[in-house]
């Protein structure tokens, strides 16, 4: 037997804020089911918070076999120290083989802190996770060098094997109504120390922000849009298609759209059913965030733009003419059917 035979199970850190579970947590449970099947083990969702036991049903229906529930007033709002302490305690006690976290602003704060405390490896922003058939190890593949290169990482000598995954990269399992998870309440003792911070205020960001990583159709604009006003064309096209508007970094940096809408290495990863890139040249950093989209359409004036290398269908032309016409024709086509 190998030295790690006591480490079992694929665990997912469930991110909930104010009683709402982040979509990425369900996506990770979906992936965890595949990994657990290959390992011949089960999926455990680690649910941390205060008065959150009611969320266990949803986790069961979405694929968790077990819910480890750490329910404590110290976990009411996200803070690094009590959450790291909770995860550390769960890992020490249950000895998972694999632990997955969403690569959100919470997961990317929590997971490294936990990895240092547990003394195990952590691989960031994985785009592919699979089990090595020979060794049973987790193979964690991630982009490096701003998406220029892919690297497959292993964690051979430490357990658990831990990874973060960006929202929108993995696919959630089909929800089975009535499927139940076994709930294991797990008591953790929290003692305040100098590593605790004090939350003075919580400020909601203005306007109901749109999570572009969850959209099925995205109409995305780049530097070629030329102005904030021109983005209205994209809102019209997105409206005709029932989609959302997103943007490249250049458009965000120019101040034409909000940073929340940015696709790419320093923005969000998206994999919609349809991605229409308008006036986006296609820098590697942008492609890294959208190339997994099912269908990619590009509209650009420059026929040498790299976006055409990954587009399924591209048209070379003046977006100011093509886009309004396209919107009109889509509206007409939809009205017919």
């Amino acid at each position: 037997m190998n030295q790690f035979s006591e480490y079992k199970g694929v665990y997912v850190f469930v991110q909930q804020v104010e009683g709402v579970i982040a979509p990425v947590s369900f996506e990770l449970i979906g992936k965890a089911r595949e990994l657990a099947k290959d390992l011949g083990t089960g999926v455990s969702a680690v649910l941390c918070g205060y008065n959150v036991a009611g969320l266990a049903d949803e986790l069961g229906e979405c694929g968790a076999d077990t819910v480890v529930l750490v329910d404590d007033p110290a976990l009411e709002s996200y803070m690094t120290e009590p959450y790291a302490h909770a995860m550390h305690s769960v890992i020490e006690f249950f000895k998972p083989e694999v632990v997955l976290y969403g690569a959100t602003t919470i997961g990317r704060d929590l997971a490294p802190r936990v990895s240092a405390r547990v003394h195990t490896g952590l691989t960031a922003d994985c785009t592919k996770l699979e089990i090595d058939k020979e060794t049973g190890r987790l193979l964690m593949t991630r982009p490096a060098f701003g998406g220029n290169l892919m690297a497959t990482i292993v964690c051979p000598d430490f357990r658990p094997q831990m990874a973060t995954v960006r929202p929108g990269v993995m696919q959630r399992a089909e929800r089975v109504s009535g499927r139940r998870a076994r709930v294991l309440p797990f008591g953790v003792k929290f003692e305040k120390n100098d590593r605790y911070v004090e939350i003075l205020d919580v400020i909601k960001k203005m306007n109901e922000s749109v999570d572009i990583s969850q959209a099925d159709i995205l109409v995305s604009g780049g530097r070629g849009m030329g102005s904030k006003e021109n983005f209205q064309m994209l809102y019209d096209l997105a409206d005709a298609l029932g989609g959302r508007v997103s943007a490249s970094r250049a458009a965000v940096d120019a101040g034409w759209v909000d940073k929340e809408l940015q696709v790419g290495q320093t923005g969000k990863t998206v994999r919609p059913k349809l991605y229409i890139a308008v006036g986006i040249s296609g820098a590697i950093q942008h492609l890294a965030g959208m190339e997994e989209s099912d269908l990619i359409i590009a509209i650009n004036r420059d026929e040498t733009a790299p976006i055409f290398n990954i587009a399924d269908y591209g048209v070379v032309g003046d977006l100011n003419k093509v886009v309004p016409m396209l919107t009109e024709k889509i509206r007409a086509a939809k009205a017919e059917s």
Partner: protein
Amino acid sequence: MLNIVVCIKQVPDTNEVRLDPKTGTLIREGVPSIMNPDDKAGLEAALRIKDELGACVRVVSMGPAQADAVLREALAMGADEAYLISDRAFGGADTWATSSTIAAAVSKLPYDIVFTGRQAIDGDTAQVGPQMAEHLGIPNVSYAEEIRVVGDSLIVKRQFENSYQVVRVKMPCLVTALTELNRPRYMTPGGIFSAYREKQVTVWARADVPVDDSNIGLKGSPTRVKESFPKALKGKGEVVTLDAEAEADYLVSKLREKFVI
């Protein structure tokens, strides 16, 4: 007076990295090295605290001898002292071993605040900052957009996807900075002169860093690169050049074929 340590990394400007279209490999020649942007924001935040309240700002970097350049740049911007952790023994480190090495080096310096960037543009892991804080046994606040010193604490505005938290954290603490935090100052001619003529970069080799052999370099790294490969490029699709109306018709027909409309 406050003591501030800023961790900075020299990175290739990934915006300048190009792929060889034939072989699909990276063209690294001629790619300039820069101070990692998030780290530079951390340095600027430290320098602003120094301007306002007075502080000794020490910059620390781990890397090959060439990383001297980013430390000199930091000195020219106004940092007071610079330390380069450089030894083959530290090479091949993953984020765990990197953070344990830098944390051990930082522990030799006095500090009330440690700044790191949120993430480096060549690795994008965002892991070294929080891992260092854990090794140092101090609190960390990630994704900082605003920072104020109030008494023995920092008040930090911390970014989340849909909200901000304003938190009070007691010093000593570690803060990971975002480029949104500020607009870094330029080096001044006097600063450049002093960085190269008057100030020193202290080099710390293996023996100067109080860290166990099992926690450094490739050997101290829990993770290993099994393989790396250029990203498989998706096959090129169909690109047409027609008049605007024909192009719109073409796209509509494709959307119909794919049952989008």
